[in-house]
């Protein structure tokens, strides 16, 4: 009887394992699939000059019956872009427009293929191994335009967009106080006498005198029309010109990174992947 129960239990257990196609218990505890080649690879450097080939070393082997056929390098392209513009004329606040962003610009692509060669076998490593290189594009060289001594309107439009200069100027105007206008207009030699446009009022908190624009009939203190008209004539480049350092306070940089990986394919087309390596281009 005992043996019969054991047989029944055993058969029932097998049924349990194979009967349910919704909850596959075997699949829940192991990864079912074909054995893929194992790959370990290392680029020689994590930073390279765009356009240069990247040297690497790879080790690979397989435990399946299928021989390895080829290896491939794949990488995507990510862009890091940084922009910064500021106006050095304002003193009552700091006005800078800064933006940093990273984005994938191109999806992972096959870049190079390397045929497997049985002569790559290394007894001490118990793996195939070889050294080679893969290419990068010159087009991915980093671009920097930082605090130039001469202003380039075309570059400004190219890197910051058509509307940026107008928006920057308009936004700055809304934030500027009398003291900022004074510093800018006198600094740019737009006026000889600024005092005729301002009043001074006692600041009860600090005890000092603050410069403000005169009140209008409604009791507001608008920017005098003459100053508004002058502001409209100031070129954007003057707005960001730093008279102390004689450069324009604009910075633009763009650089690229690749996430590279090595794939080893056996003759059935089953691929094993290495670890993704991030490489910066300059």
């Amino acid at each position: 009887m005992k043996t019969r129960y054991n047989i029944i239990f055993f058969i029932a257990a097998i049924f349990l394992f194979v009967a349910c196609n919704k909850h596959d218990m075997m699949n829940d505890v192991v990864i079912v699939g074909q054995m893929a080649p194992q790959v370990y690879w290392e680029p020689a450097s994590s930073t390279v000059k765009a356009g240069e080939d990247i040297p690497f070393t790879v080790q690979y082997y397989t435990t399946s019956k299928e021989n390895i056929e080829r290896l491939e390098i794949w990488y995507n392209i990510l862009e890091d872009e940084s922009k910064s513009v500021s106006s050095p004329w304002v003193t009552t606040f700091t006005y800078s427009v800064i933006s940093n962003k990273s984005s994938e610009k191109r999806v992972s692509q096959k870049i190079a293929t390397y045929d497997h060669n049985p002569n790559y076998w290394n007894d001490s490593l118990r793996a195939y191994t070889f050294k080679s290189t893969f290419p990068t594009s010159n087009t991915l060289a980093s671009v920097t335009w930082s605090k130039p001594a001469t202003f380039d309107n075309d570059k400004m439009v190219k890197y910051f967009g058509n509307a940026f200069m107008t928006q920057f100027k308009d936004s700055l105007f809304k934030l500027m106080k009398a003291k900022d206008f004074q510093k800018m207009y006198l600094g740019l030699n737009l006026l000889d006498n600024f005092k005729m446009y301002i009043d001074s009022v006692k600041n009860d908190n600090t005890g000092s005198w603050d410069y403000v624009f005169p009140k209008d009939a409604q009791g507001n203190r608008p920017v005098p029309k003459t100053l508004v008209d002058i502001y409209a004539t100031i070129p954007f480049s003057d707005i960001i010109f730093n008279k102390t350092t004689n450069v324009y306070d604009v910075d633009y940089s763009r650089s690229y990174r690749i996430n590279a990986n090595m794939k080893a394919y056996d003759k059935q087309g089953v691929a094993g992947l290495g670890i993704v390596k991030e490489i910066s281009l300059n």
Partner: protein
Amino acid sequence: MKILPYLLTLVTAFLVFSCIDNEPDIEELPNPNIAFKYSVIDPTYQIDYYVGATIEFVSTSVAVGECTWDFGDGTIATGSTVTHKYKTAGTYTVKLTVANAGYQTKPIFISDIKPIVSLNKTGLIEVISSSVGFNVELPNPEGLSEEYHWIFPDGTKDAAGTIISDFNGKDPGNLTFSNIGSQTVTLQVKLGGRQLEDGVIKVPVAYNQAVPTLYYAVKGGNIMALKLVSNAPAGMKINPFDMGTKSGQHPLNILFSDTSLYVIDCGRQFTYVDDQDGNLGDGRIFVMSKDGAKVETMLTNIGAAFNDPYYGYIDGGQLYFSDRNTGISTIGLKERNRTFSRADFPYFVQNATLGYYGQGLSYGAMNACFGKINNVWYWCKTYNGNGIFRFLDTDILKTPITGNGVLPLSGIALESMTPKSLVWDAKNKVIYFTLYDTGYEGLYRCTLEQLNAIKARADLTPYRLKLANGKTITPITETGKGEGSAGEFITICQLALDENDGSVYFGLRSGDAAVKSGLMRYNPTSGFIEYVIEGIDVYGVAVNKTKSKLF
């Protein structure tokens, strides 16, 4: 009353169904069963994705149906495999829609044609004497007209020895350079009348004598190198070399040893963070070859932010690196691609394994620079136990304590002050250190005996170093203006000694409007602090004392 439950049910039903917006729009998401790949089919510039290149798009979708491609530039095509040429450079979103199945999108980046400039010779290019020309590669598949305009840096001379600032034409011939450092040559090209992106090459111009090299990490920029030339001919400018390697997020210390520069970058988050899950760490140590040609990762931290590497010191084939506020660990100089874990990198020393703990040194005492002088460790602390805590290897306890330990005989220097960085000049037997105590900020120089005698801030005065105009230097310690807050301020985060002439280099983030930020040095010959490069924000500094013409 029996009607009440029916009424309530009715009202509830009205409430539930009365809203006109009870069925919000369902956003159509990309379908994972739809996929595609793309590649340039022109063999010459396969990895460049130039404007005008023929790109093949292939659907690899599991879903079956008619394929419609939107290339993101206003053009559309149908078919499972299609080709397309983009007319303008930029980034486009390509959308593949499979009928009755859904869609998938991917970005594609189309590069503009730009001139590729390279040098026509290899080997050292020495200032004044070496001449060099340029190779230009310009993809021009449509045979458009080409206009070339070169812009040269100051001190460039043509083959006849005449100063040249620009040149129109494809080949400017061989040139020489009168200044040292990265000499930026720019090539502007119009192709068919259209201005292309500039082609830029930085020519590394070496000095004509062997001198030491200073490396420094620029905030938001690259690692730079500067030849430490003390006898340059009049008119020769000593410009820095751009090593082409990003400085990282907060490279508070960089260290030179043998032929490599070790960059200790504590990552994005160097101030206090409530890292409850212990996964905000992103600091790393990377190794750059002295010429910048090779960069390798030594150690990466992906765990707790406080375990990021902050400060370092090299001794006996080991790199000692501190975390934010607990201790110091070590890693062999030849180690590469290691991932930090406390099990693999146990503390060499920590606050609680010194007898100072509970007697001057408190929990979480903030780390700053450290080093070894005459076999004694000098460990700067700027918060929760301030001063330079000195100890011998034999003072390090095997297990952490909670207090009442035996105080190391070496003692605490600058107790209760904020020493951020230090360097020892063994030849002249003087220590340099920086403080940011209000009213006593700046750089100091004294002997070890004088250091021991400093018991109060007033004792510091004779050792405070000044600019030639009599001003002292004051790093930013105003929260919101500099980086960090109390105990964390970047200030002068590293000092580097040039053993050849005793100069001490550092980056100053100036908090004094009358003194600009920049790369500075103390010149022992003049006895003053002076500018090396004005107007830059610098983190770590290091000197390769081995003399060379280039690197």
